[in-house]
């Protein structure tokens, strides 16, 4: 039961805590409380890193985001302006000391710019514990075995940081807890199939983002308790049609979805690594060897545009369009996201073949150029409205 200043919160207020947990003024709070109680916090830069391992070591997994400030002058000393903005903003955050509270960070090489961020990160050596994990760009038994060895090595290092041994039992517990989080989030998302969903797109993303920074047990307890309320709630929306699916990566500010919904539409579903893709697949239970089961979950599945399974990625988007009764797809790729940019023609072609209206507008990492973006999205929404 969440409390604030000793007072038990009303149910809508409790929901608001989950919806707004990602906000600048809130997102560090659970990490700080965790540290005050003597715990350690491990920053994660990629949804492909198994959080279950961090949990099993008794530490708090905490997804890093970049500074949303306009100026990234310190980062630009190291990085050119036409490179991944997420990485540049994260670097700025690091150099400004905003991440000094972290006890460690785990990176992946999901894309090459992340590797380059790693290079600068380890060069400036601000946070002593930093680990890089290779994410296989293949779905095969060979790849599962390889990734099992990768995360076994990670586990040994995490044990050393935590000062405790990770057992199969603690891993199973971690898997159960994170799977529960995934299941609960899917239940929330499935409620969005309704003509008037219980949450807006921005609110839904807010809840998913809070799951990434809040202790999992607390998050699960809260969301499970709030589900009956959500079953009855109706989101406050200007209009409930057209229904959009927004696709992007590193979109960790729901203000973007507020902007979209402010044009008179509803974001009924997302294809975001910070949203649906963060939790959609479960670790298969009953488990065999826990690390192997984790490997299978994280390596398999359509994944993000940087993985070679573009066909499967679009298959899934198209199936979501059908399941969530979507009228149009809005892609908002981050600028300078090179692999994603090369996928755009294929993305558009597949949706066209499936007779799904779609459009793509590049965006900054932080919320910027709102006027221009709003005008373009309004035109798309208007077109969809006319077609309907």
């Amino acid at each position, binding site marked *: 039961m969440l409390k604030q200043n000793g007072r038990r919160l009303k149910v809508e207020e409790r929901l608001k805590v989950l919806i707004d947990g990602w906000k600048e003024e809130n997102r560090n709070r659970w990490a700080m409380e965790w540290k005050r109680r003597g715990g350690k916090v491990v920053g994660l830069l990629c949804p492909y890193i198994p959080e279950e391992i961090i949990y099993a070591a008794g530490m708090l997994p905490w997804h890093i985001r970049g500074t949303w400030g306009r100026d990234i002058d310190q980062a630009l000393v190291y990085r050119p302006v036409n490179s991944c903005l997420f990485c540049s903003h994260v670097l700025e955050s690091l150099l400004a000391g905003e991440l000094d509270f972290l006890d460690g960070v785990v990176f992946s090489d999901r894309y090459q710019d992340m590797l380059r961020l790693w290079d600068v990160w380890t060069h400036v050596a601000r946070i002593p514990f930093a680990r890089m994990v290779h994410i296989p760009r293949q779905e095969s038994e060979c790849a599962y075995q390889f990734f099992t060895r990768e995360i076994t090595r990670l586990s040994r290092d995490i044990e050393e940081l935590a000062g405790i041994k990770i057992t199969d039992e603690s891993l199973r517990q971690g898997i159960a807890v994170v799977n529960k989080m995934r299941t609960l989030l899917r239940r929330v998302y499935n409620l969005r199939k309704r003509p008037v969903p219980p949450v807006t797109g921005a609110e839904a993303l807010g809840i998913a983002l809070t799951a990434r920074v809040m202790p999992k047990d607390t998050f699960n307890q809260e969301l499970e308790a709030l589900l009956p309320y959500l079953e009855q709630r109706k989101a406050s929306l200007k209009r409930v049609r057209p229904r959009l699916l927004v696709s992007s990566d590193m979109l960790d500010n729901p203000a973007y979805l507020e902007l979209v919904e402010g044009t008179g539409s509803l974001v009924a579903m997302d294809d975001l690594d910070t949203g649906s893709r963060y939790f959609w697949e479960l670790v298969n239970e009953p488990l065999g060897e826990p690390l192997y089961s984790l490997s299978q979950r994280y390596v398999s599945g359509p994944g993000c545009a940087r993985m070679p399974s573009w066909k499967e990625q679009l298959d899934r988007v198209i199936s979501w369009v059908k399941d969530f009764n979507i009228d149009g797809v809005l892609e908002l790729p981050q600028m300078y996201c*090179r692999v994603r940019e090369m996928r755009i023609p294929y993305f558009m072609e597949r949706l066209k073949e499936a007779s799904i209206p779609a459009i793509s507008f590049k965006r900054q990492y932080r919320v910027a150029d709102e006027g221009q973006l709003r005008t373009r999205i309004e035109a798309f929404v208007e077109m969809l409205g006319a077609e309907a």
Partner: protein
Amino acid sequence: MNIYEQEIAMYDKRVKRMEENPDPNKLKATKMLYELLRDGAAAHLQHWKEGKPFISGGFGNVTRALGLVGLDNVQTVARAKDVSKYMDILRAAGYPDDGCEMGTVGMAMLINGDLPLPSIATSCMPPCEPVYALGLATGHLCNIPRFNFDIALENNYDTLRYLANQIEEFIDFAESHVPGVHFDEEKLLELQEIDRAGYKYMAGIYKVRSSVPCPIGGQDVFRNPVQPSGYALPKRGLEYLGAYYEEVAERAEKGIGPVMDEKLRVMWAVSGPLGGFNFSELLAKRGVSIVHFMVGGAYRRYGLGPNYGDETEYGRKLTPLEEEARIMNRNSWGSVGTRWIGDTLRVCRELNIEAIIVYELWGCMPTVGLNKVLAEEAAKKEVGIPVLVIPGRQKGLSQADERELEERLNQFIDVCLMRKGMG
């Protein structure tokens, strides 16, 4: 004209120019190279006319052992006459026009019919994400079977076996998806033997660069030799490497080179402006030798790691597929930065290099953000090598860009010479 026809015409012209106006500062072996490239283009054109299969990407000698010809949709940007035309094609098709040209122009060439349509596409990561994305996009554009190689970040036995297993899977994949394709292990062994000899020459070519003055200069430095199987005609590639090595070794022995009054020895890294601005001539006039062009993993490129047939690295003879995996595994380009920086600084020590000029190519994912780290590492007291980082594109530089480049190079040379007490 398609790209092969363009190349045949271009190399013909260059051969003729070399015959009519030999330049003593340029390597004679370069004429062999031009003939090799011209005849290679003709062979590929013939392959195309006969309807034989091409592959976008490929994997070392395995490609050729399968009877496939690699579609060079990456390096062709260097020979593209009108890049702005290709940029228009990219934009019209919805592809980005502001990234690395090597990762995009090949796509436009394919769309425009200047390259043959491949029958199969591969991609791999590392070394290069723009090229990886090109492989994926090509596969989807052409609606052909696609295979991705996953290369780990470390170079050890586990990653060697991981990659060798994938090569095996790829062979099965190619045979079952491309009609007429069949893996010939004898062919693979033959190519590995040729490459083994080639890598010895390449190691020799690398080592003679440590001589003062450097026996290689000008644009010759930027024609990085590749292993024989990297050329369309591997046996002639080996002959070329042999001639190249003999020539530079003789120069080194005689103490001659293009920049006789050598005041400064530099490494040029990553990329450079193609066509037009002759920066190597500018540097030569100032007594600056460009000793080495650092692109790609040095040790893979220069055969300085264990060669084909080496049994000491893993304590046993490797299988032919493991040998291919080994070559790719020791690549430092596009992997963690410490590997590439380590290679770069090692080359500087071994070749007596005093300064580094990094032409930071727009959208170059293997190096974005790494160059400042390189500069700071190189500037450390124990290393003491100044680094100049210049961002730019390969093609389409304006006159103003060239003037600025010239200015920056001159200023950097002034600083380097002052540091040596020669200002």
